[in-house]
């Protein structure tokens, strides 16, 4: 797999960054395939922007190597990497028009002016800004500026495009529109995209793979469905999607299945924990896997709790259950069903054992 993926792949080998005693990124190794859309997802301070900056060359790594297409690029100057970088606040040159901004990378590559002109026009058309070629950035809306930044990046057809929370400054509707837009351009150009965001929904919508980061290190990396369906850590399980968590101690494990003892009972689930030897573990059940009622058979586990709230959100009704003093569960229910319990009732819930995951 590794040998086959060399062509156009970006390989990080133990890349890390320290500022004095502060660690911005623990040694990180990872391979990004040619044409892949990889999202670095994590809260602020998780090291995702540091990682992106080191790939771009704007920050020097403290240790480790960066290999692109089989060549060592660790200390290659930024302007010789030919990677596109879309900044969070776009960093459009305020003294140049839209067309001049987009032409800038081509000028740096000394393209003949006729070709430059056609390339700029073509790219502006792609992002639907051909009408605005002679405006200055400050005369455009946020979404339009965002598209200029994209065009300026796409125009020189970089092998790799890095995006640092490019949609962070836009409102929700525009953000969702631009997510699809970027996805479309990614498919069209076939460029490798490394995308930084702290918005898990954005990551799920856009990525081929998501790299979940926390506390300056990678928590888990995999396809969106992989991370959602088989989280390895409590952080990955709670940062992406909603999870019901029952914490406890691992009492046994047998291959892919493990058993956990919690204050509310002993349950079993698929053992997806990254650290297989850990005994301090949590049971994860997604809200959509839980049903009302006692467990109907051996293939199910269940608990009882007190219903504390009912929240109607249109497509579903969310039931909030309290177990003990500091544990609560959420489950989803069809709002049109007439069998809803009332607040304060003792309620039994169950889930299939195959839907539960045991993580560290």
């Amino acid at each position, binding site marked *: 797999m590794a040998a086959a993926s060399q062509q156009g792949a970006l390989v990080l080998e133990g890349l890390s960054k320290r500022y004095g005693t502060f660690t911005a990124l623990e040694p990180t190794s990872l391979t990004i395939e040619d044409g892949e859309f990889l999202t670095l997802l994590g809260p602020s301070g998780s090291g995702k922007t540091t990682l992106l900056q080191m790939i*771009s*060359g*704007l920050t020097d790594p403290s240790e480790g190597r960066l290999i692109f297409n089989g*060549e*060592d*690029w*660790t*200390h*290659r*100057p*930024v*302007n*010789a*990497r*030919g*990677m*596109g*970088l879309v*900044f969070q*606040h776009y*960093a*459009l*040159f*305020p*003294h140049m028009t839209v067309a001049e901004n987009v032409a*800038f*990378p081509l000028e*740096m*590559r000394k393209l003949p002016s006729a070709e430059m002109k056609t390339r700029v026009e073509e790219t502006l058309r792609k992002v639907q800004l051909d009408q605005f070629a002679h405006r200055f950035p400050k005369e455009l809306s946020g979404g339009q500026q965002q598209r200029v930044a994209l065009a*300026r990046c796409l125009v*020189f057809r970089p092998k790799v495009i*890095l995006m640092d929370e490019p949609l962070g400054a836009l409102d929700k509707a525009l953000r969702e529109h631009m997510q699809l837009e970027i996805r479309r351009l990614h498919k069209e150009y076939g460029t490798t995209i490394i995308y930084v965001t702290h918005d898990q929904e954005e990551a799920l919508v856009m990525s081929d793979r998501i790299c979940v980061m926390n506390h300056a290190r990678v928590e888990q990396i995999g396809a969106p469905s992989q991370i959602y369906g088989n989280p390895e850590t409590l952080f990955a399980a709670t940062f992406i999607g909603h999870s019901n968590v029952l914490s406890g101690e691992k009492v046994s494990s047998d291959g892919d299945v493990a058993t956990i003892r919690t204050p509310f009972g002993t349950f079993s689930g698929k053992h997806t924990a990254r650290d297989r030897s850990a005994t301090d573990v949590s049971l994860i059940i997604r809200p959509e896997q839980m049903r009302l009622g006692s467990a109907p058979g051996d293939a199910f586990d269940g608990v009882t709790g007190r219903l504390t709230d009912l929240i109607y959100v249109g497509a579903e009704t969310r039931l909030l259950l309290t177990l003990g003093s500091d544990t609560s569960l959420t489950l989803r229910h069809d709002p049109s069903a007439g069998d809803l319990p009332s607040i304060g009732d003792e309620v039994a819930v169950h889930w299939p054992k195959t839907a539960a995951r045991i993580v560290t």
Partner: protein
Amino acid sequence: MSASAVVSAPRRFQFGPLWLVLPALALLAVFFIFPLGRLFVLGVQDPGTGALTTEHYARLADTPVYWRILGITFRIAFLTAAFCLLLGYPLALWLSKMDSRRQSLMTLLVLLPFWTSYLVKTFAWMILLGNRGVLNSLLTDTGLLERPMRLMYNELGVIIGMVHAMMPLAVLTMLPVMNSIDNRLSLAAGTMGASRSQRFWLIYFPLSAPGVAAAGLLTFITSLGFFIVPAFLGGRGQTMLAQTIITQVQELVNWSFAAVLASLMVAATLVAIWIYNKFFGLSALSGQAPKVDGTPRGSAALRACGQRVLKDLAWLSSPFDRFASQDPSAKGGFSIYALVAVIFLVAPILVVFPLAFTSASSLQFPPPGYSLRWFEQYFSSPVWLAATLRSFGVAFATAFCATVLGGLAALALARSQSRWNGPIFALMLAPMVVPRIVIAVGLFYLMAQIGLVATNTGLVIGHTLLAIPYCFITIGAVLKSYDWRLNQAAETLGAGRLTILRRITLPLLRGGVISAALFAFVTSFDELTVAIFISGGLKTTLPKQMWDDMFLQLNPTLAAVSVVVLLIVTVILLATRKLQK
């Protein structure tokens, strides 16, 4: 890999951006710090043996006439600062209440006298205040006075000239602080029941106090080292410290004693700054509102005392509240005062215009007829033309050097987070704070030894020294709002460092850089103090030539020269304003 071997060379300021400050630091070290140090040492050295001695200071202590000169200097500097604040505060307040468009237009009327050469200003006042001057002619002709009043060669003349010279500085220092005061605070106080006087004295005035103090400090220390106004508008009883230093150096060649006097002047300046820093902090000097939330630095007891005084002032002025109209747009009296103040600042300068075009060979006012003969005289005089050309040459060179050195220094400090930033910042501004006369005397002593006196190089070095702080501040201000991510963006798009500088950084900083160059140009073009010592006897600069001529005899040629200087400065000022938009 060969590629990585090639690029392992230092990248992106690996030496640290502070290296860029080195050229400016080197200039300051050699031509500012070193000569100042030499000057202090001269004051405590026996000129023959070089041994340490206190005899020069003892001589000062034993000579009553020097005590008197010190007293006069402090008195005039203090009165000047006090009047500048008193007269300038309402004007600054009036300007600060305008919307920004009108304000920048009206501020020009303060900027113009600010940048007008002190010599031209003083020359104008000599025409106005003389025994047969404009004011006395008007008053006697209309029969208001029987005999001309003595308006100059006394303290009155000096104070008028000094206040006129320094008031723009006071207003321009107070204005940014006033602009930064949130007007809603006074409104809020009003809703809590504060009267007009209470709103002003208890809310607005304390918030503007840092600006007032900064203005007071700057006018005071500038006045301490001043000599042009007292030399021409004062009598023998108004001789100030700087004039005495010039006499000691040029006529008596008594370096030791000049050094003592210069040291005293620097000491007085430092004490004034120390007191200011104690109460307000030097950050307020940079023209911005203090970074802290305006909390005064003084002790609790002092604060309580200050608040007591402010409450009393509010109580004292409250009877006048009912005279003030409730309608904020009708501030007749206030506007009339501001208008008078602006006329006081601008009108004296304008008086040189009719006199430059007079047909008479004296400066009588109004002129009996008009002609261009004095301009002809100016443009056909080899002495004046040579002086003008030399001034232009020196000013161009100064503008270039000061902008490059000051700009690099500003760039260095903007990019560095070193703990040396603070001291370097202070050092870069020091030539603005240390009295020019002291810098000039120190330079003269050094340059006489290394053969730079009477050379253009010497003049350019001296002027660059004086202009660096202005360039440093101007370029530093534009760098503050510069978005450094643009450089990163250009880098990722394939631009090298030089390309980034040429295509991105310089175009975006262009306005600031050109303004800095123009400020440096005007600073040099108007500069007299250094020129008096360094320019040498035969080849002079324009201000030096004016200074010499004004001592000999007032004549309409001087008015013509003044008009030319005024026009040049005005054009440059307008160009700068245009660029800063």
